């Protein structure tokens, strides 16, 4: 008797699973042979069971298991950040210099001080790998290396290159007049075995345009080297209160290694410079507050030198109001518009954002910075540039030859973070820490401690955030020894966010030199809408990605409402493909960009106006415009702004220019 399908079907899978009796199996198989439906169902059941065969697990599963096994085997003690309380990996930890509470480096920076209750320490320290020996003579060895090297620096500063080089140094006595007896220079590092040369002794002169530090044998303080000095020398000493800050190791006139403020170091340099003056040179010393050693120039005889050194030694920083510019103008008058002015500056140029240069006549001005503020540095560079002089900065007692390996100083486009890597070949035994201060021309400064690079014991590296937008940046790198004294320092200027050099046409350039006017291909006949013959004021706005620049359009709208009725017209040049015209029009209407907008799908117009989008930024993040009046460029801007700065950019740059052009508008 044939079994019913309803009895067989439930057993089809069971047959494959070995869950049927032998007798049942025979019945099932006989039924399946005769019943096509059950045979088909049996095939489906078999296929379904095959799905139960599992594919293998992920091949990398062991890695996670191994990681967790190793982690579980590790000691359960861990650090947590005092500020954010999150887990803290030991290599990442920094410690409060006072109570040694562990922090994330970022947390300490954000908090600005130690997060431990009751501890207000603002300095931090890092754990150093254990050294094989901690004998007491280790710092002495460092000093032994440092002393002769820095003495070499001092000796070169004092050593004129003309006949006076052979003039014997004054014999011993009063400390005030005793030129230091320079110890024989000792080699520092493998390539610094010579007494003169860029490795140790040569002062570094910072290029006036703010590029890299370069070597130049003309030290600001090497008076004898200057022909102008024959007409007299006036030293201008910055004695503003900030000069009492920034303690740093320096070589005192008596040859000893000391710690001192900017003012101490400036006085030491001034003392050495005075001592080096030939007798036939007339000189004076003034401070930025208007204090003078003498009311007119005096000869550099021993008596006057002793007198001025006493005056210098007794002089302290001065809270009275003064101005470096006024003091230098005063010195120029004393010199009758000739001679040499040597300015020793640190913090005196608080007004440095705007150039209020002194009258220097025909005087040559040499400027030496003592850990200068950015404003003072800028002031010094511009002053030296304007007065055919030089600008340099003091070196520490040792120059460890700081080499900037990353980034390139001509970097043009930066991402959000910047990898800084410096190499100090002299390195490990002497240098305990390396700090970089990232500054912007606006005066913002942020300091970071670099980490020792894992691949090179003499290299230090850190990833730092780029300070807002596309500003130029300064990197001030300081190497410190185990006493935290600065033993080496070097500055760099990074030009960021700009296009190729001179890619933007300078103010005053006629449009005839720009390479073609602007035509609107969407208007019948493609008429020229801007060229050298166009009268009036036009703002030409270039943009590459029209859907990510509403801030710019908003700003342009604001300018139009303010200056439009005064005659300002706006032309937008958008890098937009033909197929996107409809969307583009909608976007422009939505943002009330109803001025003439010209499509520039191949960037032809942009390139003829000197704009290379590929180097000025990426993906349309460049804010590019020209202000044109009567066929000439008044203003060109092609940079990557921080979008938060667009409004201030409009106020400071564009509106400021426009207000001058349309003085009736506030």
């Amino acid at each position, binding site marked *: 008797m044939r079994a019913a399908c309803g009895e067989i*079907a*439930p*057993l*089809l*899978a*069971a*047959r*494959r*699973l*070995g*869950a*049927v009796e032998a007798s049942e199996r025979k019945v099932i198989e006989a039924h399946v042979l005769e019943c096509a439906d059950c045979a088909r*169902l049996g095939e*489906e*059941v078999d296929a*379904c*069971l095959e*799905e*139960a*065969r*599992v594919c*293998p*697990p*992920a091949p990398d*599963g*062991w890695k*996670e*298991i*191994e990681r*967790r*096994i*190793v982690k*579980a085997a590790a000691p359960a003690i861990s650090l947590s950040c005092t500020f954010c309380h999150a887990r803290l990996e030991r290599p990442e930890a920094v410690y409060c210099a006072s109570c040694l509470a562990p922090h994330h480096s970022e947390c300490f920076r954000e908090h600005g001080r130690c997060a431990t209750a009751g501890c207000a320490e603002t300095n931090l320290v890092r754990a150093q790998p254990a050294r094989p020996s901690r004998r007491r003579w280790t710092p002495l060895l460092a000093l032994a290396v440092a002393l002769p090297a820095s003495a070499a620096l001092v000796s070169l500063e004092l050593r004129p290159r003309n006949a006076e080089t052979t003039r014997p140094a004054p014999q011993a006595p009063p400390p005030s007049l005793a030129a230091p007896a320079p110890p024989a220079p000792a080699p520092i590092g493998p390539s610094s075995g010579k007494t003169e040369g860029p490795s140790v002794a040569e002062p570094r002169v910072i290029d006036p345009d703010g590029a890299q530090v370069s070597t130049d044998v003309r030290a600001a303080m090497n008076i004898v080297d200057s022909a102008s000095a024959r007409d007299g020398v006036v030293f201008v000493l910055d004695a503003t209160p900030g000069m009492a800050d920034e303690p740093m190791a320096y070589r005192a006139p008596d040859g000893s290694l000391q710690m001192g403020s900017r003012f101490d170091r400036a006085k030491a340099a001034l003392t050495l410079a005075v001592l080096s003056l030939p007798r036939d040179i007339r000189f004076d010393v003034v401070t930025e507050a208007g204090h003078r050693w003498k009311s007119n120039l005096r000869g550099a005889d021993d008596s006057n030198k002793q007198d001025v050194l006493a005056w210098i030694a007794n002089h302290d920083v001065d809270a009275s109001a003064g101005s470096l510019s006024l003091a230098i103008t005063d010195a120029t008058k004393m010199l009758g518009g000739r001679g040499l002015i040597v300015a020793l500056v640190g913090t005196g140029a608080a007004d440095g954002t705007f150039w209020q240069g002194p009258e220097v006549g025909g005087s040559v001005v040499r400027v030496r910075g003592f850990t200068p503020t950015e404003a003072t540095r800028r002031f010094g560079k511009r002053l030296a540039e304007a007065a055919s002089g030089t600008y340099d900065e003091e070196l520490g007692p040792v120059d460890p030859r700081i080499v900037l390996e990353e980034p390139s100083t001509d970097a043009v486009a930066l991402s959000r973070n910047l990898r800084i890597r410096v190499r100090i070949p002299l390195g490990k035994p002497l240098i305990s820490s390396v700090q970089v201060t990232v500054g912007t021309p606006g005066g913002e400064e942020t300091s970071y401690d670099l980490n020792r690079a894992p691949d090179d014991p003499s290299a230090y590296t850190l990833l730092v955030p780029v300070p807002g937008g596309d500003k130029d940046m300064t990197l001030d790198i300081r190497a410190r020894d185990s006493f935290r004294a600065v033993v080496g320092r070097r500055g760099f200027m990074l030009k960021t966010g700009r296009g190729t050099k001179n890619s933007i046409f300078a103010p005053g350039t006629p449009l005839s030199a720009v390479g073609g006017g602007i035509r609107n291909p969407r208007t019948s006949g493609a008429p020229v809408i801007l060229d050298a013959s166009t009268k009036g004021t036009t703002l030409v706005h270039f943009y590459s990605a029209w859907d990510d620049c509403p801030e710019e359009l908003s700003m342009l709208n604001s300018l139009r409402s303010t200056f439009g009725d005064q005659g300002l017209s706006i032309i937008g040049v958008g890098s937009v493909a033909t197929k996107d015209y409809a969307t583009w029009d909608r976007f422009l209407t939505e943002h009330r960009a109803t001025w003439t907008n010209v499509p520039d799908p191949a960037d032809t117009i942009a390139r003829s106006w000197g704009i290379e989008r590929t180097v000025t930024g990426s993906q349309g993040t460049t804010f590019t415009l020209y202000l044109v009046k009567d066929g000439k460029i008044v203003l060109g801007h092609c940079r990557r702004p921080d979008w938060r700065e667009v409004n201030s950019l409009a106020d400071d740059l564009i509106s400021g220019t426009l207000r001058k052009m349309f003085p009736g508008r506030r």
Partner: protein
Amino acid sequence: MPTPPLDDELVERIRSRDDASVEAFSQLYERHKQAVFAHAFGILRERAAAEDALQETFLRAHANFEKHDPTRPVSAWLQRIAFNVSMDALRSRRKDENTKQGLILRKGGSAPDDAFECARQDEERGQIKGALSRLPEELSAILVQRHALDMKNDQIADLWKVSTRTVTERLREASALLAQFLKTPGRQGGDS
């Protein structure tokens, strides 16, 4: 089943807890991961969950290796751990689902047999396709153990702490449900 000698050697090295023990444990993992994974997969029916269970199984095994009876095969011990881990995960998932269902009901929505919710759950679970995915988890697990892992009924019974007869009955029950799902068209019987 006699224990392969190599397993014994590995067990001995792992128990020594010396430097080579992790390496030995990695070899044990390579040898048994497929079986453990299949076991977990049969119960949990989600690849990601089964991967987690595989990992957790071996971590538990490593942490408790001293509790392993060296006279018994390590494979069976691992299967037991995998079973426990998978059942824990399954209970946890059911609890979550019940909670979710309760929330939906309290909000006045429909229970998860709402078509959309079921489809979503199918999507979440769906590694074993078709009728197999409609089986209750326990039946599916037993079926996988029997068919994919080639475990004997007494081994399965030992694992589930039931009699071999019960195992057979459950396999037959699974078989009947499979046939029912395959014969009935639509969501209940076919792919979702």
